[in-house]
């Protein structure tokens, strides 16, 4: 009797060991998702984000301690709301996908929140800045690691007022993204009360010719042209300003912070302003680590401005799955309780709307073909002057 029990124990132990070995060699596969604009005018940012999220997955899969093996499903929202809803539905309807890092464009992120809510699909937005994405509803499924456009426009309006500019013309694209920028910038500027807006122009997001709008602006003679929109039309507007001999300061938003903006303009980019939430990638707590790992993977394209956020979003999703297992409900519960969690973009705390409460805004000015932090630039030190700067 005793003998048989011993044998049974030994057998069980052997079985347990065999199972453990088996688990180590073939971990359970878990699918996670990524959505961003991979084609179209802002695809550089989408591809940078995709690579960064992919990096998070690869690093985890290389980690022997990870409980699961991750596979990232990538879908393209083309920065178009209709396409975004379609791919979001496709992803959320696939029960094998546990959670996703989603959207660079605000227009697509806001269009899909209801879809994710309906399917109970947890997402972390990695790049879109429209406040409504997290704040219009109180959906437990929606989170965001980057900040909103409210903060950056406050800082923007402050800088313009501080520099002594009195007149501003506003050009914004007529998507939710551009309209949001217009709204928050105009409010912030009015609150400070030093500069006034002489004209506001809505333009379509794929417009080529801005000479009519700019000629009208030229007649208004503003000191600053504020632009709420993304890189492609930002490049065109700055280019056509020069054609018409408009000397105003080009004041952009986070939407133009990309290498493509500078490449598209060459020397004309000099002196353009832009603002973005969070610190520059290289100054982030984990920026150096991120860039080293990113470069080691030899991706063809750079991570661009929001790559670090995409990495952080995907990493958070994986952390949650490791903790509570591949179950959407449990992941949502876990993400509902994020406080001072470490990440490469700094500590992340989600408020009751799932919004990370980062308040750091970085001011940029283009100097010698690079986005330089304003405070470190020659312009802040008065070595160089923006048009009309005193």
């Amino acid at each position: 009797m005793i003998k048989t029990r011993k044998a049974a124990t030994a057998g069980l132990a052997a079985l347990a060991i065999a199972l453990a070995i088996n688990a180590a060699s073939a971990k359970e596969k878990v699918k996670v998702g990524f959505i961003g604009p991979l084609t179209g005018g802002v695809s550089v940012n989408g591809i940078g984000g995709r690579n960064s999220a992919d990096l998070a997955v690869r690093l985890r899969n290389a980690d022997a301690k990870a409980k699961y093996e991750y596979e990232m499903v990538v879908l393209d929202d083309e920065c178009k709301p209709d396409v975004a809803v379609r791919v979001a539905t496709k992803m959320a309807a696939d029960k094998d996908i546990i959670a996703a890092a989603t959207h660079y464009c605000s227009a697509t992120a806001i269009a899909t929140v209801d879809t994710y809510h309906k399917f109970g699909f947890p997402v972390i937005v990695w790049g879109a800045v429209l406040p409504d994405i997290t704040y219009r509803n109180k959906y437990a499924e929606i989170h965001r690691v980057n900040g909103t456009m409210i903060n950056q426009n406050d800082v923007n309006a402050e800088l313009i007022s501080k520099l002594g500019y009195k007149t501003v013309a506003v050009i914004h694209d007529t998507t939710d993204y551009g309209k949001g920028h217009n709204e928050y910038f105009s409010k912030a500027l009015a609150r400070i009360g030093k500069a006034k807006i002489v004209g506001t122009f809505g333009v379509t997001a794929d417009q080529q010719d801005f000479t009519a709008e700019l000629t009208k602006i030229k007649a208004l003679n503003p000191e600053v042209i504020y632009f709420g929109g993304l890189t492609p039309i930002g490049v065109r507007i700055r280019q056509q300003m020069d054609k018409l001999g408009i000397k105003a300061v080009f004041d952009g938003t986070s939407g133009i912070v990309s290498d493509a903006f500078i490449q598209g303009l060459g020397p004309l980019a000099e002196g353009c302003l832009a603002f973005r939430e969070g610190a520059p990638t290289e100054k982030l707590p984990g920026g150096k680590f991120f860039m080293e790992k990113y470069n080691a993977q030899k991706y063809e394209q750079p991570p661009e401005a929001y790559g670090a956020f995409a990495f952080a979003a995907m990493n958070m999703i994986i952390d949650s799955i490791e903790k509570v297992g591949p179950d959407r409900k449990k992941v949502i519960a876990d993400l509902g309780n994020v406080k001072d969690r470490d990440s490469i973009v700094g500590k992340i705390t989600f408020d009751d709307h799932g919004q990370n409460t980062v308040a750091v805004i970085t001011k940029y000015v283009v100097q010698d073909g690079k986005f330089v932090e304003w405070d470190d630039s020659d312009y802040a030190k008065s070595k160089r002057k923006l048009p009309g700067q005193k």
Partner: protein
Amino acid sequence: MDLGLFAQYVMNGLMLGMMYALVAVGFTLFFGVLDVIKFSHGDVLTVGAFTALASYAGLSALGIHSPWLELIIMLVLATLAMALLGMLIARYLVMPLRSAPPLNTLLITLMLGTALRESVRLFYPQGANPKPFPALLPRASIDLGEFNLRLDNVLMLAAGVAVIAGLQYLLNRTKLGLAIRAVAQDEETARTMGINFTAIVLITFAIGSGLAAFAGVMNGLYYNEINFGLGLYLGVIGFSAAIIGGLGSIYGAILGGFLFAGLQTVGTVLLPFASAYKDVFAFAVVIALMAWRPTGLIREKISERV
């Protein structure tokens, strides 16, 4: 309104109109000879502009830095390459579908357009980004109050007029033009008169596509920026311009192009709710015009009536 400002708007509108007209003329030519609508026309323009940009890069690498020489080589290369592309499209995509419903041609060229556009994005180095286009024309300009008269704009307008005049001459005063017009009027009679139908169709597509390349280079020189999506928008507008002008009529296409540019400018300048609705305004007027004259402002001389 200030006179200088007015002049500036007129100049902007003329430049825009010239580009629209050049695209619209292509649509109208294709429709003339084959009664087809070729929706990839705008994207052929994009490929033309990128061909010019690539040849510029090549010339710079070869150490050629004379702006005029560069410009001429770029123009010639882009125009020839697109003429060839146009012929290939006609030969292998459009002509084989002659007996199929016209909808098939429309669809296949629409898809080809997407393929061309996405190929530029994928295969041109960093093709997704807006590309700076070199400013090769003299940059001299005169400031007349609010009006900034630029020499390069004047040169481009003149070149555009010359191209259209040349086309007009070709169509109305040469044997080739006579053949094109004959095919446009009645294919079978033209054939019996000994006109090589296939050759004429191919030549017409070559001319139309070459014009698109010219418009593409002009677009690049005017804005100093090109991107893979520029043809899509120009294609839609060029097509609308050709329709309001009256498909099949060269003058109609030119008129339509300038009319459309005028409408957009007026929409931006005079409408109280600023520029956001300028396209809504322009296209609404187009709809109204089409309701008023379904065959376009200038009718094809011989239109079939059933």
